[in-house]
């Protein structure tokens, strides 16, 4: 292998090839396949597959359950990403201060993120239990968090925020630490207070990074599946059914591969649109 590479001169393609091959085979093939399925009438328990054109997407537009799932997904994404960024930023600024035990603390902060999602969701389901859950016990409450149509989605959001905030905090901490200390010292000499330091140094310098964090978190939150699926299964009464959960149920429970793939494509289109909007914002702020 090394001999082959040595003969290559300035040919970047050879260096891109391994990654491109893996991505092309393992990622692109399934995506193209799903795109193809999304324009087929194809149910494993129906008639033979037939070309559907935009038929599946027309059905989607008329499908109240799709709009409900889209609404849930957007709400979940907006609230959880906003909370994650705010809390994550607070964590980052705090952890950037000097204190004893920074090393173990950074590891501690990453723990929630390091737990398998299905495992973390089971933990939270256990804590949310209306009868013997520790949350009700400590709060002296008698609420059935996951069974109440109002609380269920917020309970899911709380779990997601707990799990994803570390990722945000870590990236923002990295960004905060990369701001030269001299900037702050100079500003302090000029008599700036904590708020003005944040407003005029930290915030503007962190903004580009914040947008990247937003992109990553939004992509993840918009595709949320296993966390909510374990907690509520989409209930009660579909109030926590997100697009991914709907797509999962259509694909693997009702076996409508054509329509389920159309749902997946809809998720993809939404995320691409949001990302494009973010990138546009990022350009604006970088210049």
């Amino acid at each position, binding site marked *: 292998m090394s001999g082959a590479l040595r003969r290559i001169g300035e040919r970047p393609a050879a260096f891109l090839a391994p990654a491109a091959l893996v991505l092309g085979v393992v990622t692109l093939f399934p995506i193209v396949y799903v795109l193809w399925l999304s324009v087929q009438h194809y149910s*494993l328990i129906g008639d033979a597959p037939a070309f559907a054109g935009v038929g599946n997407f027309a059905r989607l537009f008329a499908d109240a359950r799709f709009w409900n799932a889209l609404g849930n997904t957007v709400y979940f994404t907006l609230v959880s990403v906003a909370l994650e960024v705010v809390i994550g930023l607070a964590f980052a600024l705090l952890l950037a201060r000097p204190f004893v035990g920074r090393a173990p603390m950074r590891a501690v902060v990453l723990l929630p993120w390091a737990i398998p999602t299905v495992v973390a969701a089971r933990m939270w389901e256990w804590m949310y239990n209306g009868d013997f859950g520790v949350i009700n016990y400590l709060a002296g409450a008698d609420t059935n968090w996951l069974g109440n149509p109002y609380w269920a989605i917020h309970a899911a959001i709380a779990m997601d925020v707990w799990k994803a905030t570390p990722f945000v905090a870590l990236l923002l901490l990295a960004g905060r630490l990369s701001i030269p200390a001299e900037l702050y010292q100079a500003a302090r000499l000029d008599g700036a207070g904590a708020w003005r330091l944040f407003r005029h140094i930290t915030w503007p310098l962190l903004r580009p990074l914040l947008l990247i964090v937003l992109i990553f978190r939004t992509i993840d939150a918009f595709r949320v599946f296993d966390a909510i699926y374990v907690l509520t299964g989409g209930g009660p009464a579909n109030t926590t059914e997100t697009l991914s959960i709907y797509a999962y149920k259509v694909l693997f*429970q009702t076996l409508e591969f054509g329509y389920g793939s159309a749902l997946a494509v809809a998720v993809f289109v939404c995320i691409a649109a949001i990302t494009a909007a973010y990138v546009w914002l990022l350009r604006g702020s970088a210049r």
Partner: protein
Amino acid sequence: MRRGRAVRGKPFLHASTAPGSSSNAHFSAGIRLRAAAVGNLILVRRVILSTLRGLSVLAAAVLLVAACGGGDPPAGAPAERTIVFKHSKLFGDPTAFAALIREFEAQHPGVRVRAETLPSASDEQHQFYVINLRGGSADFDVLALDVIWVAEFARAGWIADVGDLLAAEEHGEYFDASLESATWEGRTYAVPWFVDAGLLYYRKDLLARYGFEPPRTWEELERAALAIREHEPALHGFVFQGKQYEGLVCNALEYMWSAGGDVLRDGDVVLDSAANRRALEFLGSLVPRGISPELVTTATEEPSRYIFGSGRAVFMRNWPYAWTLFEQADSPVRGKVGVAPLPHFAGHDSAATLGGWNLGLNRRSRYPDEAAAFIRFMTSPEAQRALAREYGLNPARRRLYADPGLLAAQPHLEELRAVLDAARPRPVTPRYAQLSQVLQSEFSAVLTGLDEPAEALAEAQRETERILARP
């Protein structure tokens, strides 16, 4: 601004004296400074070089794993045929199950059986089967199927007709509902393995203390639950499975059937009926009127079993598995639990939803004869008796419910037989999963007070008609 802070005083000199660093010697002073700023050069380089070396080893290892992990023993050994049995884990000591399999192998020289467990969540099993069978997998021969999957898998062409294994004269051996669940368009696609049905659990001691008989109607259950809660406000009245999932459909259908309602009748959707409205109105009133705690809206089998099993509820709807657990030595409710058929509405009959598992035969199996023999063995009276004794799996064969040995160990079987005789399967259609999703959501809306029963049923009727009309 990023480079500056990474300086940690590791002099660049170290790097340039390290072996193999000749290319670094030509750096200009400026570059040296920049390069020095990144720090810990030697260690990092060693790690990386060894990592890259390790990679080629890994690649070889990956290929090796791929090569030997490719699946099955070479076809060149005809003397030994291995069939694979996919099933969910049996809760308990695995040795009894292993002994059964060894017994089959002893009876069939040259045939080996590999039993592979699936995750117990039924959605995960379904997903596994769907993806594998759609991909034409022949990696497993015998499949344990939830009773609601048989029609679907048969329609998809994944499981073989196993009518040969169920001679007509044997039909009387099995419960009607169980046979119905294994049959689609007049042909048999699976053999009943073990069965489940909804039961009413009640606290004998509490009912006796406050002067109640085990309730036969839902109204009686309501009266008893409310009256006992007057005296014992810390107790819950009636717990059941109300989370939005398949179990909720099982629960809700029992109310509908016991009010004279149904989902399909002769192929027509009959959801929007007076009987079903009556049933759902009762279901929707359970939480607001304090008969059931709010927690039932997320309860599955285990949370309700825990609550009842720790002595905190008067009544519970659950599957038969809970009974054995309540009679264990350390159980707080040991000896205090009675079981009865589920209540019904006045003027109608009690009904229980059939659950349980059937055995199907993968149509692509390489050893269909051996697999069929294994199904016959696993559904034989002897195997069913052993599974009932060791794991509490309720036999699909009726006469085992009169088996003296079994009855001695599990006296509730006697009550169970009557319940199972009257049990009903959920609608047998390949599109059941679609139906169930509509019903789950509408029932959940009624239970949590989001929707009126009349509206929910009208909506369910419309959606179900639309689903069944699709090509």
